[in-house]
């Protein structure tokens, strides 16, 4: 033992010749320091990529939340407790409408980001506004649906099936509403601050969020509405 508190290193260095290969400690050739993409050799990724990736991970976890509500719906589909059944509460035309609206909004959202990349504030705002309006229409349609159901006495309190139906669809609606709030905030930020890096990063995230909601909606209209109606 030495006084220096490095017993192992000192001993190891003495015997370095015992292991000329330095098994497990071979250097992979001298690499110059490069900042870059975080793939191991190059150091941390740029902020833009970190932000996008972090948000991607968040989205995956959000999808897991949805998957629980999907599972609950699958399990409680038949639990009508003597109340209305799925095919009695579904109106396919409205859902078709909602789907169309949301799909187009995804498209405009993507155009808005193309505009951002082309550094056009005007078109970014225009397409964001279009996205927002379409999202709003979607929400209004959903509210209309819920209101009509409620008027017929069909509420989540009625049965397990309705609970899981309203829960799943409502959760998506809640996400869209939150997205609208976010979108409004972003538009204000662009207006005031222009395209700073952090604002562009947030726009990337918003883009991701909006498309992910569309993906969830595909699941909902297929499993809840189309398959429920049949």
């Amino acid at each position, binding site marked *: 033992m*030495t*006084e*220096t*508190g*490095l*017993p*192992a*290193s*000192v001993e190891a*260095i*003495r015997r*370095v010749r015992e292991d000329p290969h*330095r098994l*497990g*400690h071979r*250097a*992979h050739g001298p*690499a*110059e*320091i*490069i900042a870059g993409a*975080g793939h*191991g*050799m190059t*150091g*941390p*990724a740029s902020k833009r990529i*970190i932000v996008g*990736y*972090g948000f991607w*991970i968040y989205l*995956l*976890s*959000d999808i*897991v*939340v949805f998957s*629980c*509500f999907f*599972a*609950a719906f699958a*399990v*409680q589909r038949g*639990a009508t*407790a003597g109340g209305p059944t799925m095919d009695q509460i579904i109106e396919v035309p409205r859902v078709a409408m909602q789907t169309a609206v949301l799909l187009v909004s995804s498209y405009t959202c993507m155009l808005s980001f193309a505009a951002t990349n082309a550094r056009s504030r005007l078109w970014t705002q225009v397409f964001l506004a279009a996205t927002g309006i379409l999202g709003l229409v979607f929400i209004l349609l959903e509210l209309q649906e819920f209101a009509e159901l409620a008027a017929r006495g069909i509420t*989540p*309190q*009625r*049965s*397990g*099936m309705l*609970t*899981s139906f*309203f*829960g799943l669809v409502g959760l998506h609606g809640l996400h869209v509403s939150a997205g609208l*709030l976010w979108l409004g*905030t972003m538009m204000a*930020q662009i207006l*005031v601050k222009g395209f700073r890096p*952090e604002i562009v990063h*947030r726009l990337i995230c918003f883009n991701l969020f909006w498309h992910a909601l569309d993906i969830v909606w595909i699941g909902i209209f297929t499993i809840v509405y189309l398959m429920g109606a049949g």
Partner: protein
Amino acid sequence: MFGKLDLSAVPLSEPIPLITSAVVILVALGVLVLITVRGWWPYLWHDWITSVDHKRIGIMYCLLGVLMLIRGFADAIMMRTQQAVAINAEGYLTPEHYNQIFTAHGTIMILFGAMPLVLGFMNFLVPLQLGVRDVAFPTFNSVGFWLTASGALLINISLLIGEFARTGWLPYPPLSETAYSPGVGVDYYLWAVQISGIGTLITGINIVTTVLKMRCPGMSYLRMPVFTWTALASCLLIVAVFPVLTATLAMLTLDRYVGWHYFTNTAGGNPMMFVNLIWAWGHPEVYILILPAFGIFSEIFSTFSGKPLFGYRSMVAATLFICVVSLLVWLHHFFTMGAGAAVNTFFGISSSIIAVGTGVKIYNWIFTMYGGRVRFEVPMLWSMGFIFTFIIGGLTGVLLAIPPADFVTHNSLFLVAHFHNVIIGGVVFAIFAGAEFWFPKAFGFRLYAGWGKVAFWCAFIGFWVTFTPLYILGLEGMTRRLQHINVPEWGPWLYVSVVGVAILIVGVVAQVVQLVVSIRDRELLRDVTGDPWDGRSLEWATPSPPPFFNFAVMPNVEGEEAYWGIKLRAIETQQLAPEPKYAPIEMPVHSPVGVYTAFFATVFGFAMIWHIWWLAIVALVAAFAGFVVFAWRDVHEFEVPAEEVARAERARRASREALLRKLSEEGALP
């Protein structure tokens, strides 16, 4: 105006919670007064509360965890003594009170004790081990921590105002539905756990992104220290299953608040679905705790054996194996619910397969010591205690994973003994081992080893004396969560268990004494080199404590065990690497958004618990406003001038050079 809240919410007739809260409040007030008198507020505010430095946040996480462990331990003492005196008698705790205690104990220990500690270690270590300056999202990191603190605060408020849940740490419906639990206890549980769960999710996302996207140059995946690997695996599990917790609690909340029927026992609700979903989170949750613990032990075994970890790749493979397989075993917590033989077989086998991954780790640790120079410093003692304790706990886990055996041990004290065996022997021992190990890194001086050894032996012996009787009682057919006992024959074992708790108390005291003594003698125990244990990974390349920017220049990693390589080269050539060119560093500015959000989260939770709707809305709006203000700020980063970087780095180099000189003076070198 105040919803369900009025003065009668305070349990004036129950002395225990009343006195406890009075003491806690007095102590807290005392601390606040002290801070004010000493004028420490600015320091606290700028350097801790609003800090976004991952090391500070890590330390605060650990502090929170330790406080909550103590609270949970107090609950444990009450439970053990109650059961010892309540044999054919009522004991000193009524059912209402006792049932709150075990619920609070389980919830607090797992979600507010062990979790913050584990997250704290990850926060503190991952960027250091990766050779970078911070986590991916420093400000969100602060939000995550403070949300967890907010949940912990809510739980502790329930001690004085209202009550806590009386359902067990996983509130199975229908018992937890409004019909059977009309009080606010379950609501406290729901909001506290929900809020802190979101905080945990944020931290999980943060660390996954950090590990995947922010490694220093040359730090390829297979060069990452094993602790970082386990942190990654653990955080992947967080990202995968905490949303399940969020969803499940949200469903129960909807049942309770607006009369929906996810889990009610009427109108098509399905309580079994809750059990299913909560364990889909609950099981991976325990692996979220144990994986980083494995990481801690890996670092310790290799450092104190003076050898690289044996079978590094196997270790990484086993970690990822456990991570994935742990996602498909959750049914083993309800084998006895009646899903039938096919389902039980599948989940039984997949559960026991986890033992393969764990076994590989155990053997790799043993072979790490093989051919080593094993130094029995305190962290190493904990690690040896862990090997023994955890293997036994794992064995009983595998027993429980055999459905026909679980049919007679489910919910028995055998189960209680199993999970304390793996949690205390695994997670808690790891935390103490890791605390001894990295304390000098965090604070600049070592902990006094003598008291550390006392603490270890008390914990180790105390653990076995406390929990061996529970194994036996479980085999005798004693079930868990009993407020009093109707079988006098069980008495002797319960007394033995109390003796064990007494030994544990001595251990806790020893730990406190160790801290006090070490702080007193900190100059003697000072770690001047930054590498007190002859370490191997990059955190030991920094001074103790590290500067807030961690590394003056990002290390350029050229092999496994990055720091070990650097160190050996320095010793071999008897000089440090040539001095780099110093450049200014951009660091994130501190931000109050974390505490701010958490404050309103607490208010929101409290308002929801007591049905004070207006206040809940106010809190939500305020939180959103806070975020907008935060999003509007212009300055995100500040620049550390090159001179400051150079100054810090030169001091570090000087201490390392002194060390090299000393080595050659001693003639230790070949």
